[in-house]
């Protein structure tokens, strides 16, 4: 038998071996092609598979558009939820932001949080575990150990910051009422400045010391003077330094007593002079400790209050009538954008790693599938 003459001869024979589809199959496939390849009956895909198949069939541009629209809708929904929840949930950190924003803008979308004249919308910044009864009290835990946590009574320093919004022509009157309120509370005006002028320029500033026991009443009185733009109270637990100072004072007194005994028993001028020198040094030390104790005592008994009266332009109540203006709208828009940005960041922080894991899993699965397919031909 003759071998193949050349490569072309071989190729011609090869082409003759080409498998051909049956007439029935070809006709059936043509029909399906004409009908747009409908899904064959009997093939029941799970809803998830069908959904994935539908997604995979989408053109990339349309898929990106759909994904973008979904992400945007989710962001809008989350922002709305966060904003509404923040407004409703007074215990949440968001409420703190909203509350401040409401005080500052003087009347806008979150107007139900807005303090009216004499409002007591307050942001508290409290030291932990401070018992109400001890706040402002001056009893020292001298009968306890050196650790503040063991002290039976707490020494707490309180301070407050208050901003009142006022019309320019009311500043002088409001300032006068502030002095009256300080006087009524037996407080001290450390410094004050009252400026006249138009909106944005007129204003007043007071640095006050108010007896801690009367701080609440004094703040209520200040808040009643005009519209509260913002109010901030803080407490600082000073029990530990107070206890330490007390102990130092006792130790110092004991040392002085001991030195006095030594001085009485000194039998020579040299010994007496040496003891007196020690006594003087210890008395200086005791005086310094007493001075620090007095300062702590003052901090516990007198609360520092910073009070400002502002008019227009600034963060004070610009519109005491409560009407919602362009400035408020801009403020609200900024607030909503900030919330949206926060939601986006949190969302990305959650979705980003998950997407990365999913992407690597997809890559790994793709590589595994490719290897498995190639192994079939090996």
């Amino acid at each position, binding site marked *: 038998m003759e071998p193949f003459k050349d490569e072309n001869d071989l*190729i011609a024979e090869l082409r003759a071996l080409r498998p051909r589809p049956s007439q029935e199959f070809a006709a059936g496939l043509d029909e399906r092609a004409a009908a747009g390849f409908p899904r064959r009956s009997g093939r029941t895909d799970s809803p998830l598979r069908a959904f994935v198949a539908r997604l995979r069939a989408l053109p990339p541009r349309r898929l990106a558009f759909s994904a973008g629209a979904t992400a945007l809708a989710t962001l809008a929904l989350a922002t709305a939820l966060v904003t509404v929840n923040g407004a409703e949930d007074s215990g949440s950190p968001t409420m703190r932001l909203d509350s401040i924003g409401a005080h500052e803008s003087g009347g806008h979308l979150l107007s139900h949080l807005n303090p009216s004249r004499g409002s007591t919308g307050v942001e508290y910044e409290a030291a932990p575990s401070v018992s109400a009864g001890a706040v402002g009290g001056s009893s020292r835990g001298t009968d306890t150990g050196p650790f503040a946590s063991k002290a039976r009574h707490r020494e707490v320093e309180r301070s407050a910051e208050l901003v009142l919004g006022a019309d320019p022509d009311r500043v002088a009157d409001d300032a006068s009422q502030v002095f009256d309120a300080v006087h009524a509370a037996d407080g001290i005006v450390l410094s004050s400045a009252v400026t006249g002028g138009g909106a944005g320029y007129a204003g007043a500033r007071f640095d006050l010391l108010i007896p801690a026991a009367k701080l609440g009443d004094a703040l209520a009185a200040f808040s009643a003077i005009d519209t509260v733009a913002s109010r901030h109270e803080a407490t600082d637990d000073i029990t530990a330094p107070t206890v330490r100072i007390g102990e130092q004072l006792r130790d110092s007194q004991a040392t002085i007593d001991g030195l006095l005994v030594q001085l009485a028993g000194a039998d020579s001028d040299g010994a007496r002079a040496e003891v007196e020198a020690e006594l003087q040094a210890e008395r200086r030390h005791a005086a310094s400790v007493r001075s620090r104790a007095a300062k702590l005592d003052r901090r516990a008994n007198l609360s520092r209050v910073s009070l400002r009266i502002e008019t227009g332009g600034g963060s004070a109540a610009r519109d005491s009538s409560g009407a919602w203006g362009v400035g408020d709208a801009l403020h609200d828009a900024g607030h909503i954008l900030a919330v949206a940005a926060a939601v986006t960041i949190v969302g990305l922080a959650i979705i980003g790693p998950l997407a990365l894991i999913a992407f690597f899993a997809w890559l790994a699965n793709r590589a595994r599938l490719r290897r498995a397919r190639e192994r079939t031909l090996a």
Partner: protein
Amino acid sequence: MDPFGGRSKSVNGTLTATAAEAPSTAELAFDRLYRSSRDDLYAYVASLVRDPAAAEEVTAAAFERAYRKRSRFDPGRGEPRAWLFGIARNAALDELRRRGRQAELAVDPADLVSAPTDESAEASERRLALAAGLAGLEARERELIALKFFAGLGNAEIGAVIGISESNAGTRLHRAVTKLREACDGAL
């Protein structure tokens, strides 16, 4: 733009669409791809899965997948026929994996012997020797020959389908044909 513009071959039957459902450009292009590739794709798939019924199933599934993904085809990334044959290759290999069978060529010497032909006994013997030679090649070599001589793909398309360069495809193909010829010459 016609993303599936390609060579045309005769295929029995005509794809029709009703006036109410006027086909889009993409559908017309896919129609042309289908017409030009139906028999070629079947020949290639049949060579891989070595079972006519499975070949029909895989061919239909490949066209179905390609039809569903037609909007995602990017002409800038290759020829439409290479894209279609890539889909068919994956489907065929998945079928083989599912069935746990090794891919082999559809050419079965026994089929050729029993094939009713009016050619001479010598021609039949040559064909039988060729089929035996094909069966003796490695699966990857047989796939190359099927893509080239059964499906009619160019070297660039073959490279795109199996993921190698055009020159590499040409080199491998030449080696496979030489090996086949040597096997046939030895048998004859």
